[in-house]
């Protein structure tokens, strides 16, 4: 136990944890959206994220900014970030839609027990994971360092750099946009209606299949955003990148209350903090133990997660 160390480095650990937590939160949204509407855990979502990370690097390569290119000026960097975001979002959303079309929709028509969906989800995940592994020779693919981390300001002695600010701000903006979309638009109302009562929604003329496609697509878009932020921070992609991150994002979704959008944000940030604080107090070898112990503890007292499960009722 190193409580002194934890107190001395509290802000530094927190900044790092919140940054990673923001990425968990974006990925967690994909799990939460699908669960909120379908009561289905889409285990292939970690691979949706993974395809996005490769899309960012491939897009930059194709635009002539590969690993060994000189770092361009600010204007070009912004353009490349936008291009990366577009490529990742399209790829991740495309992958998510493909998984839905191939692995879930044909099954849904036959109305099988929900366990079957769980198995196809894992199957789809393995197929994507192995396919990309084979295509990339299971090797790491590096990206150009577009944003060099530079300290912007100091928070009680902990330096906060531009990459960290960018990740947290971008994640919060995306989540705010998503919440507005779900709560204020016509399509969003359809999503909430299907989440609350699929049969009543269908009777009221909501096209259930279209809503389901929509949530898979939105989940993919959020994962694409997370993929871009991940590449900016980590600098390389690998076929198995989704595994650990996916498990943690899923845990974040459950922690906050799966099916609840704000829960994903709270869960993600909390998991990131728990990771870094746990590593600070108990040593880095406990980094993966502490957040999951926290998860179990919280679920013991609040079985539906911190904010509860319902997307429909979490309107406030």
């Amino acid at each position: 136990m190193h409580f002194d160390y934890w107190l001395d480095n509290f802000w530094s650990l927190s900044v790092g944890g919140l940054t990673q937590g923001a990425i968990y939160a974006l990925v967690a949204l994909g799990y939460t959206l699908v669960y909120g509407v379908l009561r289905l855990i889409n285990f292939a979502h970690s691979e949706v994220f993974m395809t996005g990370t490769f899309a960012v690097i491939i897009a930059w390569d194709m635009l002539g900014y590969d690993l060994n290119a000189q770092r361009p000026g600010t204007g070009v960097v912004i353009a490349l970030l936008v291009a990366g975001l577009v490529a990742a979002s399209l790829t991740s959303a495309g992958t998510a839609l493909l998984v839905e079309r191939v692995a879930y929709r044909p099954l849904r028509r036959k109305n099988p027990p929900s366990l079957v969906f769980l198995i196809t989800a894992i199957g789809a995940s393995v197929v994507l994971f192995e396919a990309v592994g084979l295509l990339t020779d299971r090797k790491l693919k590096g990206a150009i360092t577009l944003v060099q981390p530079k300290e912007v300001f100091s928070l009680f002695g902990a330096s906060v750099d531009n990459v960290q600010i960018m990740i947290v701000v971008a994640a919060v903006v995306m989540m705010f946009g998503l919440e507005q979309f779900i709560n204020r638009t016509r399509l969003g109302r359809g999503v909430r209606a299907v989440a609350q009562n699929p049969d009543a929604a269908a009777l009221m003329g909501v096209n259930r299949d279209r809503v389901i496609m929509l949530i898979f697509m939105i989940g993919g878009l959020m994962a694409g955003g997370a993929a871009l932020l991940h590449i900016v921070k980590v600098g390389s992609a690998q076929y198995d990148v989704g595994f650990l991150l996916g498990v943690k994002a899923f845990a974040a979704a459950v922690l906050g209350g799966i099916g609840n959008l704000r829960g994903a944000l709270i869960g993600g940030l909390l998991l990131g903090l728990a990771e870094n604080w746990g590593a600070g107090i108990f040593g880095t070898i406990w980094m993966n133990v502490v957040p999951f112990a926290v998860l179990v503890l919280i679920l013991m007292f609040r079985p539906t997660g911190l904010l509860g499960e319902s997307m429909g009722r979490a309107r406030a």
Partner: protein
Amino acid sequence: MRQTFVRAFGGAAVLALALGASAGCVKSGEDANKAGKDCSVKIAFFGALTGPNAALGINIRDGAKLAIDQYNAAKTADNCKIELANNDSQGDEKAAPGIADAIVQDTKIIGVVGPAFSGESKAANGKLSDNGVTIITPSATNPTLADQGWKTFHRALGNDAAQGPAAGRYIKDVLKAQKVFVIDDTSEYGKGLADEVKKTVTPVATGTTSKGQTDFSALITQIKSSGADAVYYGGYYAEAGPFVKQLRGQGVKATFVSGDGVKDDKFIEGAGKDAAEGAILTCPCVPPDKAAGSFAADYKKATGNEPGTYSAEAYDAASILVAAVKAGNITRPNVEKFVDAYNGKGVTTTFKFTDKGEIDLSAVAVWAYKVEGGKIVALQEIPKP
């Protein structure tokens, strides 16, 4: 009905097996008798030629092939022609036992260059050893391989137990680092290496990473607060790349030192050229261009490529088996006796195997490499204690 069929089929299969086995015995007996006249033999390569780790396997195969081709081309050699039998394991330990069986079956094979990796060695060497096939690995560096009681096991290079202390000496004597932060990835390889380093230098603090980890902010906070001037990492490049990128991104200037698991261009790709610059990587492998004699030039002429990691070690391993054939040993027991008693100089170091099959640890050359201008270049041989 079905059961009858299965019984009949099973009976036939058992019969076929029995026949096949007896046929095999007869054949090998014949071969042994004939050996006096037709003395052509085979040396087997055992390692990955396809799959994710193929690059290393191809380096080894080409090094071994060069030694055998040179022998076959030399007119002074007597009539015993040597053939290289390629056994592609894809680096997969699940495939290794089957390959070992195939090698054991082929009685022309007198020795194996390989298996290339420690995992597949553990899976295959027992079978090879039980059947008297001489094993000389040019690349598997897990120290415990020598302790399995395999009678025919030999290692043509140092093991990780030699690499760790050498890395420690380099940090202490050459870098003269005062505060060393030691990290391992909790894998058998990474932890073993880091533990050896800890025996030589007293770490100011320690930390760990896990497979697939991409966020290292907690670890980097710890490194920063320790004020370390050197960071040792026991692990593989997949985590080391992103780690070093984030380490430099957070403004930590401490020298990064790691082992042969990170000595790969993919490390530079993962970390980015700027962040990887100046990293020190150790390896119990001699830089191919520093190998003695005309090896580097011959290799380039034969393959069109520069010799890669472990090419020179594979050349030496194959050369020892070739020397056995040259001395007239064309049966497995004789080759094994010859290799056990071998004492000679190769292009990388001097070979004289201990009872366990290790080369003299004081003869093990561990080299320090450095990342310079986006390339891994050989720096110096780490002085022996």
